[in-house]
């Protein structure tokens, strides 16, 4: 299965149209392998993006350089997925007995 260890989901708050445009530029940088869960829209509308571990530093530096605020929405995607799988397995085990 695809491994999402160290992947974070950042919630980005673009304050104005220029910042939205900057985030849109990030979208075009294919080598970062970003997965936009909520794409860039109008200022004030949150932008959520899953960032692979290998791109975390680059993305955060980019955002900070341009004064774009963000928070970490999900600290480690894989840990959430593990929890989800555990719940499903637990249900299946109960159903099996």
């Amino acid at each position, binding site marked *: 299965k*695809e491994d999402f260890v160290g992947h974070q989901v950042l919630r980005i708050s673009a304050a104005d149209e220029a910042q939205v445009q900057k985030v849109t530029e990030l979208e075009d940088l294919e080598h970062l392998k970003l997965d936009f869960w909520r794409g860039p829209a109008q200022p004030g509308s949150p932008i959520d993006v899953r960032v692979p571990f290998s791109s975390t530093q680059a993305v955060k530096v980019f955002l900070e350089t341009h004064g774009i605020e963000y928070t970490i929405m999900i600290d480690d995607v894989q840990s959430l997925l593990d929890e989800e799988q555990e719940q499903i397995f637990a249900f299946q085990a109960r159903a099996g007995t």
Partner: protein
Amino acid sequence: TDTFNYATYHTLEEIYGFMDMLVAEHPQLVSKFQIGSTYEGRPIYVLKFSTGGNNRPAIWIDTGIHSREWVTQASGIWFAKKITQDYGQDTSLTTILDNMDIFLEIVTNPDGFAFTHSKNRLWRKTRSITAGSACIGVDPNRNWDAGFGKAGASNNPCSETYHGKFANSETEVKSIVDFVKSHGNIKAFISIHSYSQLLLYPYGYTTEQTPDHNELDQLAKDAVTALSSLYGTKFKYGSIIKAIYRASGGTIDWTYNQGIKYSYTFELRDTGRYGFLLPASQIIPTAQETWLALKTIMEYTLNHPY
């Protein structure tokens, strides 16, 4: 289906098994039919809830066109059960079903959904191969023939919003298109996504307002009011392009342009904690509150024929 666990996520096989059980339990009310096959050859099933009549006006609901939005398929299962439980008990739903049919496609993107269970939990697109590209899949919510290929979709096959080679290139989309056209009497079309708590109406590909803008806006307001009444979940509403962003080739833009006035799309919970990874404990509350909004739209559709 009484012992089916609605509070956990299920595989495609379990969901298809659930559908068969529901049909077996309520043969006078529920039937299952196949509208097509996926790129990888899986059947695409739709549940039909009908109390009789020939080609009655109908309401379409689909969940799971973006495969990783697991709370939507899970909600679809809950809706199916709810319809069978409430028919004959709930006056409003009974009146709707005595006059209209309801079509429910619980897994709109079966290949993608199977892939989320086997290989990549966060897979969104179909699984079709694009000639000349190493990347797989098309965003089935950019593949409809409504502003297809315009701004608001990507022409890069590696993008999550890749619109595909041409409109309806995806069999998962074409199957619905063919069904909607052949039926010819669908009056409301509701496509359910997650997340970000929105109720949206056309358009997404243009800033132009639809001729029914005011009516769609008022109905959206009523629907989110009903939704919020249960747990206080806050939804915003508006046209796609205003409330989120420009998106071309989207489902409900096409259905609206086909003449289905009451065309809506939901984005279910949450507001920024779990995203697509909504804990299973939230499935039932999500479905319950969404059901209230669905009922508002369905009741309005029944009472405002066109």
